[in-house]
């Protein structure tokens, strides 16, 4: 009896040779315990050393091995051969990103969008200095002391802080493909996460990006981003909470014109 095998169809693209990507088929020994990442490793070691893909932690923490498996954005380390066996597994790079080589995509636009939402705590001193028009109370950073946060205050944003920047949500989002300028699910969810943080004073600085036409207003709540998220961040909820907030601020800006100038 011959050993059990499983077939993988992998979208290949070599920028030095290929005009466009094409599927390559590999047949490898079937091992029930193997993840898709193990299978790719086998192919690279034994069959085709030119196969290119990103990976690091192998435990769904680093967010490196996002790829499209049988049409669904997934982490390679969390996808197992046994989930598909005996059917062929179709592997493609993340959608809505330029393909660099094989399963590796160019994520630079994602990094720019992530930076744009200022994904870090902006403390009171930084917030005051960013807006000289407001009264600056002379304060040294050390005089602020430590930031206390209760479990309840942390619970407010914890879900949105679980993001591992794996970009599966960007691959899942059709609005991303229709409007590449869209800031996108993860970056907006992370911006929301800092806005909800009791230690943060940077909401005003993030508003321009979050409330922009290419911010939350490019979303139509398809909701697939939240379905594929490996960490249950629910970026669709984060985005649409910001629409509700934006609508409220929009209305308030007529009652209190100062608010509109933020």
């Amino acid at each position, binding site marked *: 009896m011959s050993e059990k095998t499983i077939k993988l169809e992998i979208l290949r693209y070599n920028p030095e040779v290929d005009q466009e990507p094409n599927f390559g088929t590999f047949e490898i020994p079937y091992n029930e315990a193997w993840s898709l990442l193990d299978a790719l490793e086998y192919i690279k070691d034994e069959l085709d050393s030119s196969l290119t893909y990103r990976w690091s932690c192998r435990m769904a923490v680093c967010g490196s091995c996002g790829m499209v498996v049988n049409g669904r954005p997934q982490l390679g380390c969390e996808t197992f051969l046994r989930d598909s066996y005996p059917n062929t597994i179709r592997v493609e790079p993340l959608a809505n990103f330029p393909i660099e080589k094989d399963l590796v995509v160019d994520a630079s636009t994602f990094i720019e969008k992530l930076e744009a939402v200022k994904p870090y705590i902006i403390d009171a001193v930084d917030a005051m200095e960013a807006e000289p028009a407001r009264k600056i109370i002379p304060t040294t950073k050390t005089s602020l002391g430590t930031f206390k946060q209760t479990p309840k205050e942390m619970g407010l944003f914890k879900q949105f802080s679980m993001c591992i920047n794996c970009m599966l949500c960007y691959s899942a989002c059709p609005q991303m493909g*229709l409007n590449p300028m869209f800031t996108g699910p993860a970056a907006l969810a992370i911006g929301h996460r800092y806005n909800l943080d009791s230690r943060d004073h940077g909401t005003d600085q993030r*508003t321009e990006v979050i409330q922009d036409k290419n911010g939350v207003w490019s979303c139509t709540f398809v909701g697939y981003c939240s379905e594929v998220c490996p960490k249950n961040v629910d970026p669709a909820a984060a985005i649409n909470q910001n629409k509700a907030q934006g609508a409220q601020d929009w*209305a308030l800006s007529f009652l209190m014109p100062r608010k509109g100038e933020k």
Partner: protein
Amino acid sequence: MKPENRHIEPLLWSLFGAGGMTIAFLVPAVILVVGILMPMGLLPAEALSYERMSAFFLDSWIGKLSAIALLVPGYWGCIHRVYHGMHDLQIHTNEKVKLGCYGSVLVLSIVTVMLVLFG
């Protein structure tokens, strides 16, 4: 938001939300009554008679408000999805198309309110 970056999407989305709400909560029963029960003869003959309907929707204040609440937000809810649906279907739109979509709904809303209040 800086004034130059402000846009009307928050207003259009709020109207869409209001329309989504009225379509979800009021319209199913209205379709059931007007579109299915009445044609099938499952309602008393006089249920939707001119006398009753005009007395309620045109002469009583609660009826007038019901007619406006049933119709107007729904227009905005629908047109918002139609407009964004064109984007989804990769039909190229511009400010004129947008103005045409939401503008015609604005006119329809005004006509509806005028008919109910002064008809």
